[in-house]
């Protein structure tokens, strides 16, 4: 089931799987949307499951972001995602 909340991603990320990609049909997808954003794009991911990317806020302003733990951080503020 797809969910659109960051905690779901964290659960997903925390449940790391040991095996590598091998079968396209068995991939499980989670949608990652920054709340109240117009769009969200994930551009990078490290081995600690910290993702980086960008989102457009409700005013259309683009923000760079880091997704780590239960928060999204950008250049101006840090907010907890629900």
């Amino acid at each position, binding site marked *: 089931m797809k969910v659109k909340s960051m905690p779901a991603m964290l659960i997903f990320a925390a449940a790391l799987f040991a095996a590598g990609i091998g079968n396209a049909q068995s991939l499980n997808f989670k949608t990652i949307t920054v709340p109240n954003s117009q769009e969200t794009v994930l551009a990078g*991911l490290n*081995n600690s499951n910290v993702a980086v990317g960008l989102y457009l806020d409700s005013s259309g302003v683009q923000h760079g972001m880091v997704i780590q733990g239960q928060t999204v951080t950008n250049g101006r503020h840090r907010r907890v995602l629900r």
Partner: protein
Amino acid sequence: MEKNGTFKDVLPLGSSSSSVDIINDNGVMAGTYLDPITGLNLAFYGPPTNFTSVNVPTSTATLAAVTNNAAKAIVITWTDPSGNEESSVYNATNGNFTTVNVPSAASSFADYINNHNQIVYAWEDSSGNFHGAVRSASGQFATFDDPDGTNTEPSAINDAGIIDGAFTPTGASAPQGFAAKQ
């Protein structure tokens, strides 16, 4: 950017324009630069004190270059003379190039290589739609799409095999992020 928050330009090999696409855990970077001699965008990789230039022989432009911690494989996305995007791996040990396009793709954009030498791609079909693919270290491809939308465009794959990127949800026009794992 250093720990104190300052920025440094990275302008390899006398260039005036560049893009760094990756830095590995050892400080080795890879990316593209505008070659002042040929006027072409070429790939570069290496530590900041010793960048090496790489150019796929039939390339008309280099779009991106990435590597992993071993820095033995430089994955390059480039434009061919027909205007299609292709992907190649440069073997930094022997200097050989291997084309690693997604089978049947009109264009292949290799976005990332992890430390297991898995390469993740965004690729374009003949209708202009984007999809994802992963190439294993042994050269096997697996394609994928986010089942809840179109234009799946992965950006990275980490060592655990988690892939992230963006796609367009069904009925929407703006992209959203995704994370995917087997």
